């Protein structure tokens, strides 16, 4: 290299006066401190310069590298695979550098490493190619990381595709970007049919606004767990699905989308329905004594009146009276049976607009007599302006009945059961049952909603009542709490959201 090319190539060195010797030393220093392997080839493919990095990585000495032909530097396999000789010759010919490629290079006795290399022509002042610089950057680590990322990606894809639950990703506007196998299977819609469509559009009409507001609140950073939203699937069926949503962010915390995982609740619903049904039968068993009494009274009236009539057929006045009593008794008995049937009939999934006070009144009507007999004074403090909610009336009656029966059992010598309804913070209604019974010991208070937990003698309680109540209240998106003082009584507090779905 002459001094002209020196000033041309080394911009910035103009103002520094360096002797030829100092300049060469500086060049060598830079050359050897670069963390990449550098080899400069001449037209005959012999090595003009090899930097320290190359010599160290390839375990070679200056002596067996400098001035050697490329064939002595790289194995034939590498040369043939990379076509490095031809490429270098091409650069000499065209004066145009070669873009980067990857090369697996393995020195004798060392593990193989991956290099990213490119070829740069060094031009003299007549623009002729004086030499070709091979720059090799060791990317072994990056490549292994890349492999790991790919593996993780494949693993995730596998997980998502083999999952039994719907896994879908949405963009921040709620448009579907991915839709896994399970989602295709459950919904009947293929991924390609849905990409770019909004998840909301698949929701049943009355839940569309709910999902829209959920997506909005997730975009604002909230995590939403266990929302029940039903999808209308391809064959027109409505599938209840329990969803969890989470926000996807990139490294800069910017929102890139939403992931939704949805579990098909159909089977669970069916099981729940069965459980509710068996619980109804169980509470019926608990009520049986009361029912027998309920029904024997009107039967007794009809039967006695009929017998009196038979014994005194000629008494005009008595005849009318007897007929009337027979009729009244039968009417009463059939009313009781009717109520029972209503109660035990399997409930269809049916949310309706409901005034909670009515459900409470109807529940008490069923067991009014039993309350009287047990000398339980029922006080109702019902808020007449209680908002209407969407609820399954029969299920709620079941839930209330279980609490009432539980309270009655806690007051074997009679007492007072106060039921209060009120609106709380404008977004939920509270239903409070307060008894003056024996109370629940502290050690039991966490267990009372557990299935089969019962303090009643074997055969007298199923231990299912309150656990059913619990699941019914959950089913309505509500909550139930209990406070109790042994010897004073218990308070069951039920919350049901007003805008539940």
């Amino acid at each position, binding site marked *: 290299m002459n001094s002209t090319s020196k000033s041309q190539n080394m911009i910035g060195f103009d103002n520094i006066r360096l002797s030829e010797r100092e300049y060469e030393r500086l060049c060598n220093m830079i050359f050897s401190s670069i963390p990449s392997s550098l080899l400069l080839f001449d037209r005959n493919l012999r090595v003009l310069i090899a930097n320290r990095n190359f010599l160290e990585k390839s375990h070679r000495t200056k002596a067996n590298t400098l001035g050697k032909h490329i064939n002595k530097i790289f194995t034939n396999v590498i040369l043939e695979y990379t076509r490095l000789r031809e490429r270098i010759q091409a650069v000499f010919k065209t004066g145009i550098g070669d873009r980067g490629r990857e090369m697996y290079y393995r020195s004798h006795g060392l593990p193989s490493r991956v290099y990213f290399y490119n070829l740069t022509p060094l031009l003299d002042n007549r623009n002729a190619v004086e030499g070709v610089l091979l720059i090799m950057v060791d990317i072994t680590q990056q490549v292994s990381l890349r492999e790991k990322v790919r593996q993780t990606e494949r693993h995730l894809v596998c997980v998502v595709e083999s999952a039994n639950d719907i896994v879908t990703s949405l963009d921040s506007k709620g448009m579907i970007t991915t839709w896994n196998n399970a989602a295709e299977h459950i919904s009947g819609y293929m991924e390609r049919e849905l990409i770019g469509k909004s998840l909301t559009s698949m929701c049943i009409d009355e839940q569309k606004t709910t999902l829209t507001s959920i997506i909005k609140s997730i975009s604002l950073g909230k995590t939403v767990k266990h929302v029940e939203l039903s999808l209308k699937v391809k064959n027109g069926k409505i599938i209840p699905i329990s969803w969890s949503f989470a926000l996807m962010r990139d490294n800069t915390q910017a929102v890139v989308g939403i992931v939704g995982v949805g579990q098909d609740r159909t089977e669970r619903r069916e099981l729940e329905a069965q459980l509710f049904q068996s619980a109804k039968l169980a509470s019926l068993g608990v009520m049986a*004594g009361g029912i027998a009494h309920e029904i024997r009274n009107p039967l007794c009236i009809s039967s006695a009146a009929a017998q009196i009539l038979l014994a005194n057929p000629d008494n005009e006045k008595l005849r009318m009276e007897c007929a009337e009593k027979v009729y009244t008794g039968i009417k009463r008995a059939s009313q009781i049976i009717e109520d029972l049937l209503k109660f035990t009939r399997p409930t269809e999934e049916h949310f309706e607009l409901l005034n909670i006070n009515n459900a409470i009144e109807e529940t008490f009507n069923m067991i009014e007599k039993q309350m009287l007999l047990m000398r339980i004074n029922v006080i109702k403090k019902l808020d007449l302006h209680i908002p209407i909610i969407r609820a399954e009336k029969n299920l709620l009656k079941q839930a209330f009945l279980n609490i009432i029966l539980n309270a009655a059992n806690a007051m074997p010598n009679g007492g007072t059961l106060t039921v209060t309804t009120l609106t709380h913070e404008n977004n939920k209604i509270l239903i409070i049952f307060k008894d003056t019974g024996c109370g629940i010991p502290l050690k039991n208070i966490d267990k009372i909603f557990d299935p089969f937990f019962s303090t009643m003698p074997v055969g007298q309680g199923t231990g299912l009542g309150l656990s059913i109540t619990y699941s019914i209240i959950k089913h309505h998106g509500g909550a139930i709490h209990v406070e109790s003082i042994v010897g004073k009584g218990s308070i069951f507090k039920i919350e049901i959201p007003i805008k539940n779905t």
Partner: protein
Amino acid sequence: MSEKTQVLIVDDEVDICWALENILMLEDYNYKIHIATSGKEGLNFIEQLHSTISLLILDIKLPDIDGLKFADFVRQHYPQIKIIIITGYYYRHSDIVQQGLANNLFDGFIGKPFKISEIHSTIESIAS
């Protein structure tokens, strides 16, 4: 029986009282019937008329007072009053009924619904 037998019927079911009254009155028996439709009312009758009442027909499931305690009270204080309990709540073979009869807490049991003949035979068996 020259004097009328005074009977107190205690049942919160008005129609049951009506039936019992008719069953007793329409037969050739010589009864005077008092009717109470609550435990309290029944106790009032007992307090006032215990010297004349000889038979108590008592529903043991009353809304205000436990009928068995009612019976016990009467037995303690006015042992001359015969007691027949009447209920739709227990069967004749129920423990509470069997024990009550064995321990002489009451003298007779009638289950609802009943036959007219049962009423008569129970009363007769007690009287004898």
